[in-house]
């Protein structure tokens, strides 16, 4: 095949096709989302692919598929693996027949995440193999390897790329797409698939017995490699290994860790040949702990003695500086530079005409003294409007709200949660809040899509991952059946309607739900929906800045007057807000 300039996630998706994948499921999460997005939009596709409603569901689906003997993939971001941790831990016990690869994409520096957890820890915790690619090209080869490794040992394999693999590009020559597909057949075997205590004790022992052979295989297969060149060495894993390679002097030994568990005998033999070893890896000191465990007389340098940071991502300059500190002269020098200070920040912002903005505006108007637990999605950007007080993880707006209420807090509590997040893990929180008599308002920001991660469909969209029409889901019916005392649907663009519903909710007791609907503007535009844009009449505008504070990126302010630029998508909300009526639809007087 011809060489292409490919995104890491594209290479990973392609490798799944090379490995004859039969089944793929996932929940969107940056930086993992493009893998399923690419698989689901293939022109010719002879495997099953779905967006699941959450990561636990995705993994359980894929696990079952692997039990029937087909090759399956479950994708998620690192924090999604927390949601899937329950099936993960026991899937190692049951094992698999068909290859099962769990892709958990880590995000050092938290470019788009709520934390910097290291998925390698999960693999060690669950006692399953983990593959950690150093380059985009290697990610492809490793993904193919992951499926065979999984089948060879009958274990799920955790595949752990990081943001700088998923969202990096490289010249790559992709392999041939396979066409050797299997059909699942479930072989009844309660000793393996029913983890009652009597069975699970046996399964645990079997799992433990697999550990040493897996570690040895990772060396035999060349996933973990070492070259001895001198008395000083560097051991690196993940993308950090490619930074080290660029800087590695000729006389310094190098071991590259691409897979876990690391064979302790192999590692001890390498370490033992050196006076000094520097360990370079992002996030947790997983390799370093293993190295320190086997080192007898060798000096070990790494995170645990402050040579490298425990947080954030590395780059060539930070690796070079750690090498220098450890007495290894890197091949390149990096100047000390500092950014120009005090440049106004440019944080991401809700799109012009995003329905979330007007709903936040209405919340702020009615619940002046409220407490605002929120959730994970574009609407987390509502923090800029002062209407996001908490965000911890998917679905935690409603639960945090009921927790705060039950602590005795007397101010109004207004939660915001998107439709996809509500269906992911929000429903349980709502059910619990109603069941336990909470007093709060839940606003579901319903834009019919999972927007933040790149506009993936969810059950509320009405189509599946592959574009097949799906049965309609009624958010109202779900909320009513959970027992909410008040359920009202409003248009996010109709400020009067939003304000009325908020006031009605505020006046009532119990758990009240407002479903604010308006399609995501990006999606609406793609679907061909066009609205006339708005304009400010400078003769009427008094420069009060009410619309400017609303924060739409289409609204500017120059020479004491507001004006509207070409980003305007015609939502009309600024016109509803303007106290002097200076904002009008283009062409209207």
């Amino acid at each position, binding site marked *: 095949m011809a060489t292409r300039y490919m995104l890491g996630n594209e290479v990973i998706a392609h490798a799944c096709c090379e490995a004859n994948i039969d089944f793929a499921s996932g929940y969107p999460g940056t930086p993992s989302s493009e893998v399923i997005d690419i698989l689901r939009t293939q022109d010719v596709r002879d495997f099953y692919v779905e967006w699941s409603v959450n990561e636990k569901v995705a993994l359980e689906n894929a696990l079952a598929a692997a039990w029937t003997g087909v090759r399956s993939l479950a994708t998620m971001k690192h924090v999604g693996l927390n949601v899937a941790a329950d099936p993960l831990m026991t899937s190692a016990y049951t094992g698999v027949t068909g290859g099962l690869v769990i892709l958990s994409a880590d995000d050092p520096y938290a470019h788009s995440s709520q934390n910097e957890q290291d998925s390698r820890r999960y693999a060690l915790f669950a006692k399953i193999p983990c593959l950690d690619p150093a*380059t985009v090209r290697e990610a492809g080869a490793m993904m193919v390897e992951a499926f065979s490794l999984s089948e060879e040992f009958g274990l799920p394999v955790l595949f752990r790329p990081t943001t700088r693999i998923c969202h990096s590009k490289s010249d790559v020559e992709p392999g041939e797409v396979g066409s050797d597909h299997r059909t699942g057949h479930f072989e009844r075997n309660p000793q393996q698939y029913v983890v009652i205590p009597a069975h699970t004790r046996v399964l645990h022992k079997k799992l433990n017995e697999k550990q040493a052979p897996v570690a040895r295989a990772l060396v035999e297969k060349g996933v973990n490699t070492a070259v001895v060149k001198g008395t000083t060495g560097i051991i690196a894993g993940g993308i950090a290994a490619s930074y080290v390679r660029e800087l590695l002097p000729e006389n310094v030994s190098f071991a590259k860790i691409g897979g876990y568990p690391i064979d302790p005998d192999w590692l001890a033999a390498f370490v033992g040949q050196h006076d000094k070893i520097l360990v370079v890896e992002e996030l947790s000191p997983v390799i370093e702990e293993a190295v320190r465990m086997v080192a007898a007389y060798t000096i070990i340098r790494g995170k645990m003695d402050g040579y490298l940071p425990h947080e954030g991502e590395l*780059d060539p300059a930070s690796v070079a500086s750690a090498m220098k500190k450890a007495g290894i002269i890197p091949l390149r020098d990096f100047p000390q530079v500092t*950014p120009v200070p005090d440049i106004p920040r440019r944080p991401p912002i809700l799109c012009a005409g995003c329905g979330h903005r007007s709903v936040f505006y209405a919340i702020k108007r009615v619940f002046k003294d409220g407490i605002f637990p929120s959730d994970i999605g574009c609407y987390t950007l509502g923090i800029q409007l002062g209407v996001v007080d908490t965000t911890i993880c998917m679905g935690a707006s409603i639960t945090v709200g009921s927790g705060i209420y039950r602590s005795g807090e007397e101010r109004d509590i207004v939660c915001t949660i998107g439709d996809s997040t509500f269906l992911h893990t929000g429903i349980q929180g709502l059910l619990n809040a109603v069941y336990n008599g909470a007093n709060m308002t839940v606003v579901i920001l319903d834009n019919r899509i999972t927007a933040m991660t790149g506009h993936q469909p969810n059950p509320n969209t009405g189509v599946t991952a592959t574009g097949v029409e799906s049965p309609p889901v009624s958010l109202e019916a779900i909320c009513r059946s959970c027992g909410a005392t008040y359920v009202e649907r409003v248009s996010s663009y109709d400020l009067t309607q939003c304000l009325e519903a908020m006031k009605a909710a505020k006046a009532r007791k119990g758990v009240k739900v407002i479903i604010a609907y308006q399609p995501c503007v990006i999606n609406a535009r793609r679907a061909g929906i066009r609205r006339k844009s708005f304009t400010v009449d400078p003769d009427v505008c008094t420069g009060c800045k009410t619309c400017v504070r609303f924060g739409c990126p289409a609204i500017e*302010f120059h020479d004491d007057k507001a004006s509207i630029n070409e980003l305007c998508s015609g939502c009309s909300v600024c016109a509803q807000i303007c106290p002097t009526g200076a904002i009008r639809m283009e062409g209207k007087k």
Partner: protein
Amino acid sequence: MSGSYDVLIVGVGGQGTILASNILGEACLIEGKSVRGAETHGMAQRGGSVETHIRIDGKFGPLISPGTADLIVSFDLLEALRYSHFLKEGGVIITNIETIIPTSAFQHDADVPGQEDILNLLSGRDVITVDAAALALEAGTILTQNVVMLGAAAPYLPLAVESLKEAVRRSVPPKTVDTNLKAFDLGRGAPE
């Protein structure tokens, strides 16, 4: 020496830095050069500050460290300033002369340095400014500003103009090839 020619493309989410990176990557393929790139996806793309790293002839990691970029191509003047410390001694900045004022600055009455202030702050550097909007409009649509900027960068890239043009042809939607090629050529004539 790294052996690669390192280009940082910066701008505001939505300005098309990823397309620009695709064009450079494609041009590398045409010339048989190896290439590594790193992009901003996810939340920052909603109007935030974005950066794309491209290492032409790169064989290792995709990231360019501060102080080592051979060339910075900026789609926004304020972003050129924000990332200027990435430039190596003797490197070149090619930047759009316009800036999109961050909405948060309007909301909070924050001071945003004007064109002249920014150019003064950049005065120690080799800076080339381009009126990308005017040239893009001349080409036919404001949406081609990113390709105008690539055209302006062409003389500094270790890639033949023909390869870049072929890369533009391959990377943009078929219906927009002519407009984009015009934008590229107008950009190429732009630097004084």
